[in-house]
């Protein structure tokens, strides 16, 4: 050993010991992660269920099966956060408590999260390669969700609902003075109807038809091709209606379901990815969400578009 090394060693040894002690110490900081009872497990054909169980259940069910290396802090802390957040957004163990439309929506969302490479989380598949979803698995899942999408010609109930709503809708009639406000403080903006349509979508996953509107700032940004990120002041409104299809396959909008907004301000809305999110349902404009945390749902589903400023729509210009 050289003389120069010894002061180094004198420091290194205690530092190492300290780190070791700290490592052992943090193992006692182990917030419990329990497996609550399975109240209504996900049901699907075996091939589908196997994929979901293998790739998703560790974070999205009450049957989390942590391996020894998941239980070592600090990895454990992240794992347990993932499981808590994962279960909050999607839990296959309480599947039967969701209405069937919501179940379908979660499945389409799941397939899309997989297609976009967002799920299963890459941090996780790194340590659990068996959870990776192969191209063949994806094909199985796609085929399954596609088989759930049925968009038959509109029945009388749907036609009547649309007709009733149309009759009660009085454009130009005096609106109530109280403007509806979402739980995060964003108010309904009636002016969206005067914005420009930047796209339309036929959603065969949930039987709706939609128009996406952009305000003047959005339209200018599209023309100037400055849309990633979108400039502050950009506003989108997406309107969804039921599809009314006839036997010839002609689809027109039926009952109005909702309008959703995304308002860009990277300062004001820094906590929610730079966007103010809001959804108002039915022509009565009922604000969506129990509390301000409803935006988590919006953000989680828009998350795969994070490299595109959280925006799905590829806008067209007029």
């Amino acid at each position, binding site marked *: 050993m050289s003389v120069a090394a010894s002061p180094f060693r004198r420091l290194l040894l205690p530092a190492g010991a300290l780190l070791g002690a700290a490592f052992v110490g943090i193992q006692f900081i182990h917030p419990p992660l329990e497996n609550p009872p399975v109240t209504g497990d996900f049901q699907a054909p075996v091939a589908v269920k196997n994929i979901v169980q293998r790739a998703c259940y560790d974070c999205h069910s009450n049957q989390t099966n942590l391996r020894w290396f998941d239980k070592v802090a600090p990895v454990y802390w992240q794992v347990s956060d993932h499981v808590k957040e994962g279960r909050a957004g999607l839990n296959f163990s309480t599947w039967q408590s969701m209405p069937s439309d919501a179940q379908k929506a979660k499945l*389409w969302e799941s*397939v*899309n999260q997989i*297609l*976009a*490479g967002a799920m299963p989380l*890459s941090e996780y598949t*790194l340590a659990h390669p068996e959870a990776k979803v192969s191209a063949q698995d994806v094909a199985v899942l*796609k085929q399954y*969700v596609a088989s759930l*999408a049925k968009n038959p010609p509109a029945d009388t109930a749907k036609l009547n609902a649309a007709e009733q*709503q*149309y009759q009660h*809708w009085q*454009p130009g009639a005096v609106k109530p003075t109280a403007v509806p406000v979402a739980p995060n403080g964003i108010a309904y903006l009636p002016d969206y*109807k*005067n914005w*420009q*349509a930047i*796209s*339309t*979508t*036929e*959603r*065969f*996953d*949930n039987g709706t*038809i*939609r*128009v996406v509107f952009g305000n003047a700032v959005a339209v200018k940004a*599209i*023309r100037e*091709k400055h*849309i*990633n990120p979108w400039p502050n002041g950009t506003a989108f409104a997406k*309107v969804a*209606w039921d599809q009314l*299809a006839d036997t*010839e*396959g*002609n*689809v*027109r*909008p039926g*009952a*109005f379901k909702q*309008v959703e907004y995304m308002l860009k301000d990277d300062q004001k809305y820094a906590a929610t990815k730079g966007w103010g999110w809001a959804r108002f349902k039915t*022509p009565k*404009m009922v604000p969506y969400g129990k509390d301000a945390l409803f935006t988590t749902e919006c953000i989680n589903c828009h998350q*795969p*578009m994070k*490299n*595109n400023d959280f925006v*799905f*729509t*590829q*806008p*067209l*210009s*007029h």
Partner: protein
Amino acid sequence: MKATPIALGALLALSACSQHKVPTGQRNADASLPAAFNFNKLGLRVLSTFVNRRQATTATLYGNDLARQAALGAPGATQPGEVLALITWRQQPDPNWFGARIPGALQSLELLRTGPASAARPAVRYQCFVGKDLVLKADTLHQQARIAYLLAQKPAVLP
């Protein structure tokens, strides 16, 4: 020593995977109207939107205030000064959402204007522009049917 580039490469490969195929900052160029057409100058608002599953097309109906009022009123309540436009696209799968179809190639723009009826001029003028460059179509086949179709559409509920 050798491990570093390998580890770096692996990391890069991993991050490349998680960045995946989502296209970024993209406009829908195929579906866009030629700027020279100056569609915005018409000052129209969205009235409704349609899909034709057999033909795999999607369309958006626009109108000015007069056209909107007429469409809301009793059928056949046409008045002079109405402008209606129907833009039709071929559909394409949404690259960002399995479960959705969005406008693809621009197919046509139909423009209808009503004027006071007189001996010299019909009360309804109909034009159809086709293709990516929206070239005015010369043949007038099916015009009457298209006029009737356009005037029969009800606006979608937009509260």
